[in-house]
């Protein structure tokens, strides 16, 4: 009996996670809130979440609401922090430029089309990042081409034909709608499954 009581009293072994000084997250512009996942991430590192959200939302006032911004937060031992807000994520920029909302779902699927001019402009935006300072523009463009490949965006040298692009985007939209419908059906079937 006594042993049972002792077992009940015994606390769970708490494994203390030692967090590093650097926190890398993507936060949507003007939409930082104390809700998960951001709130707990900051809270575990001992930061004042409300103040952080306020500062972040103020700093990102010049961005369109909801733009995903890679953020690097360096937490100091005295619980102060350095906030580094980078330019919007490469995938977001590429998807916006291509006019698509969804990357490729299967191998060898082409979801959008871009020209090297688009990439050059995006590279110029990305080169403002702290991490990409002094990196040649050519190298940034090469990185962008790699990202395009993972997204399923076709990069071409010549200018896009507007008529052809419109046809492509319409066809693509139908395909994406079908994909999303399929996914929703699968999800519904999973919810209804009893076994």
């Amino acid at each position, binding site marked *: 009996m006594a042993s049972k009581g002792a077992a009940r009293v015994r606390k769970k072994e708490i494994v203390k996670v030692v967090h590093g000084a*650097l926190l890398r997250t993507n936060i949507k512009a003007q939409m930082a809130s104390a809700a998960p996942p951001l709130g707990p991430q900051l809270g575990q590192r001992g930061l004042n979440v409300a103040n952080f959200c306020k500062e972040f939302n103020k700093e990102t006032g010049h961005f369109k609401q909801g733009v995903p911004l890679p953020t690097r937060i360096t937490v100091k031992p005295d619980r102060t922090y350095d906030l580094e807000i980078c330019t919007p994520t490469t995938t977001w920029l590429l998807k916006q430029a291509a006019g698509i909302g969804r990357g490729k779902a299967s191998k060898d699927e082409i979801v959008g089309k871009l020209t090297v001019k688009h990439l050059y402009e995006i590279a110029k935006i990305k080169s403002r990042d702290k*991490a*990409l*300072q*002094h*990196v*040649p523009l050519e190298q940034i463009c090469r990185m962008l081409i790699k990202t395009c490949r993972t997204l399923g965006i076709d990069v071409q040298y010549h200018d896009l034909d507007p008529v052809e692009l419109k046809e492509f985007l319409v066809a693509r939209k139908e395909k994406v709608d079908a994909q999303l419908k399929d996914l929703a059906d699968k999800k519904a079937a999973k919810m209804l499954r009893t076994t």
Partner: protein
Amino acid sequence: MLNQSLRPLVNVQVRSVSSKYPRPTPRHFKRRLFEAALKPELPPTVNMCIPPGLIKREHTGKSKEYSDVELALSNLVRDWMVREEFRVMAVCQFLPVPGRTLWFAKNQLRSKNIEFRSYGNKILKKIFDKTPMSSLNTVLVGNNAILLAKDISAIKSILQETDKLNWIEPLVMMADGRIVDMVDARELAKLSSLEDLRAHTVQLLGQQVAQVTISLDTVTRHLPSLLDSHISTNQEAKK
């Protein structure tokens, strides 16, 4: 017959316990006998003893072979080095460092016109193969990286930058096809400009030329006076 002889041995209780339950080691002697009796009969295996040196030789022989990808990479890097016309190269010891620190340091070095590259010693040896740089193979031990620069005065900036970073240590430098050891490189780095050295050399050479002309001139200048004195002494003797 076999069944009868095994019967006392097979009397091992079969317990259905979790596989995570630690089995007693060594196993009970009954269990060991049981397992020995039920061991499948396999053809005898012949254990070959290979001398350790032979294994090592095979291993090193294999490690020296280059795959197509490695050859292509080494060709690519060699072509790039030739195309970019690098004049200074420093082979450095490269210690482990967090990726983020390395990335920022690379960018910092690039801002000083120094290119940081680390391909592994196997590739580097292939790049340096059949070039004057092949004599640098002796320093390619462990983890190495190379710093490249287009300007000869970058020796100074390479030393300045590597002194700031504790995870990179230059071992030897190469400037215009000439190997410069670290002592000499530090001496060169002390100079305000390498133009000083050139001026000094020109001055030394100029001094030599001037000395030669002066010494030749003195003979020609002295010759008439000598002849005059000789004639005058001859005339006095005749009188």
